[in-house]
């Protein structure tokens, strides 16, 4: 549905060249929810804005629904944009117009009769759970309700694609979940393809099927969300996964962590990631028996992503000399293992 090919974009800031996007290649399937995650300044907004040409890439191709947008005339580009809804972190509603007129705005841009507009707005109000709010002004609504108005407005022309720029970042966790599940409903019931950007792995985990990790203008990793969660390759990806798995170790342990063994009684620290049915408990007790090693579980976290469980665990081994055998054993049993380092515990 959306295909970005070799996209490059540079900005000039005070005479300096800033590379916002570098050789971006991305393919979003029809009907999926695709997430792009990255830190501040990674280029997420720039990338999303390239999809509807709010920002024109310096080079590359933008193909949406089979049309190459850079080849379109101004008039055809306006038509193409109508088939793409867009929502934003700060909602961007018209403060001087009520909910009805905010949602009706995109419809008024085309030659629709006021009766048709009335009907369509009514449908959209119901779809987004805003019945009864038609006459309210934006300043009278909560953040979640404002985002619902923005979503209704974005869906006015029954778009095939919805672009979301940090739509839930200004909302509290509970409202975030409600807005995300609304987006999921829209995806499942109306078949709208959603491309969303976020800096929160939780958002990706909740509704995305696939994800791309953007760092300093480049896509460093992309794939199925579950794969990225259980087998992150790049350090940046790992840190995003870790924020979501609530995996930061206590600082006193981190302070004592060395990459090499310094003392004969230092304990190796292992990080395990697992998914699905590689049920982890029997493996751990197997490890104890098979390798004759004492194990200390420091941290464990379990997640369900798209109905499949996955998780991560940090443990320390009592005997450093059994480390290689233990890693072998765990890998053979289908776990992702990484030796974080050595630490003198106790």
């Amino acid at each position, binding site marked *: 549905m959306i295909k970005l090919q070799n996209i490059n974009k540079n900005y000039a800031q005070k005479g300096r060249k800033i590379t916002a996007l570098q050789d971006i290649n991305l393919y979003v399937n029809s009907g999926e929810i695709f997430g792009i995650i990255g830190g501040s300044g990674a280029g997420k907004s720039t990338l999303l804005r390239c999809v*509807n040409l*709010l920002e024109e890439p310096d080079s590359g191709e933008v193909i949406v629904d089979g049309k190459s947008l850079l080849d379109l005339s101004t008039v055809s*580009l*306006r*038509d*193409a*944009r*109508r088939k*793409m809804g*867009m929502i*934003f972190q*700060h909602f*961007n*509603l*018209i*403060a*001087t*117009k009520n909910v009805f007129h905010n949602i009706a*705005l*995109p419809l*008024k*841009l085309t030659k629709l009769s006021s009766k048709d507009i009335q009907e369509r707005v009514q449908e959209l109000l119901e779809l987004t759970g805003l019945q009864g709010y038609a006459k309210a*002004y*934006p*300043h009278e609504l909560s953040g979640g309700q404002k985002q619902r108005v*923005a979503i209704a*407005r974005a869906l006015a022309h029954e778009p095939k694609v919805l*672009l979301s720029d940090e739509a839930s970042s200004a909302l509290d966790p509970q409202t975030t979940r409600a807005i995300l599940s609304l987006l999921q409903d829209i995806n499942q019931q109306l078949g709208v393809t959603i491309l969303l950007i976020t800096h929160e792995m939780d958002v990706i985990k909740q509704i995305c099927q696939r994800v791309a990790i953007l760092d300093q203008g480049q896509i460093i990793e992309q794939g199925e969300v579950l794969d990225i969660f259980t087998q992150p390759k790049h350090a940046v990806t790992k840190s995003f996964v870790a924020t979501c798995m609530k995996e930061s170790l206590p600082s006193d342990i981190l302070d004592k962590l060395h990459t090499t063994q310094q003392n004969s009684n230092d304990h190796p620290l292992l990080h395990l990631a697992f998914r699905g049915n590689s049920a982890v408990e029997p493996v751990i007790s197997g490890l104890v028996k098979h390798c004759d090693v004492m194990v200390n579980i420091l941290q464990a976290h379990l997640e369900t992503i798209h109905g499949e469980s996955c998780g991560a665990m940090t443990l320390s081994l009592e005997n450093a000399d059994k480390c290689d055998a233990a890693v072998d054993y765990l890998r053979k049993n289908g776990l992702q293992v990484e030796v974080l380092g050595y630490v003198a515990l106790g």
Partner: protein
Amino acid sequence: MSPLVNATWETIYMVAISGFVAALLGGALGIILFLTAPKRALSNAAIHQSLGLIVNIARSIPYIIFMIALIPITRLIVGTSIGTLAAMVPLTLAAAPFYARIAESAFNEVSPGLIEAVTAMGAKASQLIWYVLLPEAMPSLIRGLTITLIALVGYSAMAGIVGGGGLGALAYHYGYQRFDAQIMLSTTAILVVMVQVLQWVGDYLAKKLSRRS
């Protein structure tokens, strides 16, 4: 009709008509200045800069000089350079660039995010103006219009000296040339009331139209 009432009506008439025309002209100029700025919907450096220069030049000439310098043009437009109608030509032409800058800054206050959202909907420039820029900037536009009208009340009094009508002319002829203190005081009082009323109405409308809390 007493000369005082007559002069008051003339002032109201001059200010209202020239204010109205200046708001239209200046508002249009303000929109063009806004939309032709870099990175905007109709960005065009040549138009933006030359219009900006014209507006700045017009604004930097003191009104009394502007009014005299414009006499030939006034004659060309209304056939005479004396009277209320003639006074309205320089009033309008001075107020329009003044209001253009006010309007431009009112449009600059409209949230760029909102403009982006509407562009993403596939809006044309004209639709952007009509559905977003004007309604969102309306409270500021009205506050700016209040300032412009009050300035026009002051300018219109100056017009009286070079043969325009209104309270300025009255104060000049009776108050200054005949030392009629009563007329002098009355015209001043009327001008004060006029400015107060304009300010009240402007504030009220601006407040009513702005839906931010």
